[in-house]
């Protein structure tokens, strides 16, 4: 069986959930091989982690020389590994960086690229599902030339444990000078909020302009449900939340089991980021708000009274 390369998404060596999802998808398509580009001292732990999700082989690339540069060196590393492994597909997480690596790799390998897949199945080769035009269409597609390069959105699969051999292969990548042209001058890690990661959370509670700038009621409600907190662009543009919280066309796409929109009108660009949520709930004082067209359950009311009361009731139930 041919190898399917999976670029492992991690933070300082700590493997992120989307990587396990990709390994699970890779198993449908062939033999999963993980590619870990990261700090040498974190490699052992990463190898152990990906083995548990079926990685038969792990290509380990020490990133000492490349971590100061943007995406280009990672694309070169993948090109080199693909050259020796002749994989039947290459899977990358659909993050901003992941998509750019995929784009560069597609040019290098002269291969077709599909981004933002929400599902990948084996149908005589990888067949992707994309949700396009703000979620109004579902598109199935295939790569017809070269090595299929596919970026997959978080939550596209449920990670399944299965032991892989995890045979380690150290790869030393020879980088071109041109890959080092864009430097990372400074980097500030995102502070953890203690809440679940937005794109991975099972429940997302978000607030918009209707919060009037005070997110505490939205946050308390989220905490009662163990949810991640999100925001509309209006809330972000007003400086009430950092851009990392934004959901929508130019923010994050979420696809949780439950999405609760509070004081959000439901503009098409916001819908683009949450329309595929399994259950949608809205609290909005305007019964004409377009968000109500999408909801499984809606409350026409003032979020400043509805949310605190609901939070109290949920906490009381939990005892």
């Amino acid at each position, binding site marked *: 069986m041919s190898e399917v390369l999976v670029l492992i998404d991690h933070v300082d060596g700590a493997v992120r959930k989307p990587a396990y999802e990709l390994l699970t998808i890779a198993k449908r398509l062939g033999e999963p091989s993980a590619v870990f580009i990261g700090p040498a001292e974190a490699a052992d732990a990463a190898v152990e982690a990906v083995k548990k999700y079926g990685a038969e082989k792990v290509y380990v690339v020490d990133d000492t020389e490349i971590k100061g540069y943007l995406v280009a060196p990672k694309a070169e590393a993948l090109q080199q590994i693909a050259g020796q492994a002749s994989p039947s597909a290459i899977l990358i997480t659909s993050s901003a960086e992941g998509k750019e690596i995929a784009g560069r790799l597609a040019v290098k390998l002269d291969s077709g690229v599909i981004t933002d897949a929400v599902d990948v199945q084996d149908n005589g080769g990888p067949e992707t599902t994309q949700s396009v035009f703000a979620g109004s269409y579902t598109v199935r597609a295939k790569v017809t030339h070269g090595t299929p390069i596919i970026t997959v959105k978080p939550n596209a699969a449920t990670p399944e444990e299965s032991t892989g051999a995890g045979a380690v292969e150290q790869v030393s990548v020879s980088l071109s000078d041109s890959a080092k042209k864009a430097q990372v001058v400074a980097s500030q890690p*995102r502070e953890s909020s203690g809440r679940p990661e937005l794109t991975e959370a099972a429940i997302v509670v978000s607030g918009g302009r209707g919060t009037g700038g005070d997110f505490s009621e939205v946050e308390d409600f989220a905490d009662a449900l163990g949810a991640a907190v999100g925001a509309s662009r209006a809330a972000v543009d007003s400086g009430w939340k950092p851009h990392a919280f934004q959901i929508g066309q130019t923010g994050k796409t979420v696809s949780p089991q439950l999405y609760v929109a509070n004081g959000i009108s439901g503009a098409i660009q916001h819908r683009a980021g949450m329309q595929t949520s399994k259950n949608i709930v809205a609290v909005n004082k305007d019964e004409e708000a377009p968000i109500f067209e999408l909801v499984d359950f809606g409350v026409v009311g003032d979020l400043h009274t509805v949310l605190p009361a609901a939070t109290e009731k949920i906490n009381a139930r939990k005892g």
Partner: protein
Amino acid sequence: MKYVPDATADQKFEDDLTVDRAAVPGLLSELDEYAVEQALQIKEKSENPESVEVTALCVGPAEAVDAVRKALQMGADKGIHVADDSIAGSDALATSKVLAAAVKKAGDVDVVMCGMASTDGAMSVVPAMLAERLDLPQLTLASVVEFQGDQFRVKRDGDTSTDVLGATAPLVLSVTDQSGEARYPSFKGIMAAKKKPMETWSLGDLGVDAGEVGLSAAWTKVEAADARPPRTQGEIVTDEDGSGATALVEFLASKKFI
């Protein structure tokens, strides 16, 4: 900058599963207005603005000239529209190939400025592909652009960190919608745009073979495009004296979220 179907209208697909671009009015991709704005600001903030020329480049069908015109009205100095029937149906690889060839033909380019994504395909790969093809550094997804001479610094909000990136021109930049609101064309700008130089190039002008682009040379194939069934509206209650919170909590409990 790309000419795209209006994202707020209902999209349709053709029988060959390409986007039906006639079904929906087209416009300059809103996210590319931010790119035009930042390009104009680079000109205005540079030491010698008169020596800096902003060229608006668009690859697209005949109507796409409207996107170029909009950029000229905003203040770009010159327009290039690459139009050729063989380009229709191109994938990202082919699009970036045509764009790279056009940038090369345009000559002495210091900054290739792009938007963060088109509002139709929304892949966010074209700027990286351009950097790869042109062998230039990429400073992409910038929310802030700063420069001194040919030294550029940008701020990029990543998934797990916020980074400052640096590179020396020539380079490829892409800017997000956090980079600053785009200006509206003034009446003066609209009048001035009519006299600005505009060129239309074909594939032949770029030395790109028609066989390398278009639907037949796309290395991804759409097999099906199905309209998502509209969501059926669920129950909606009006809050009165706390009834809203009670009903909300009951709904959440019935779905086992609490």
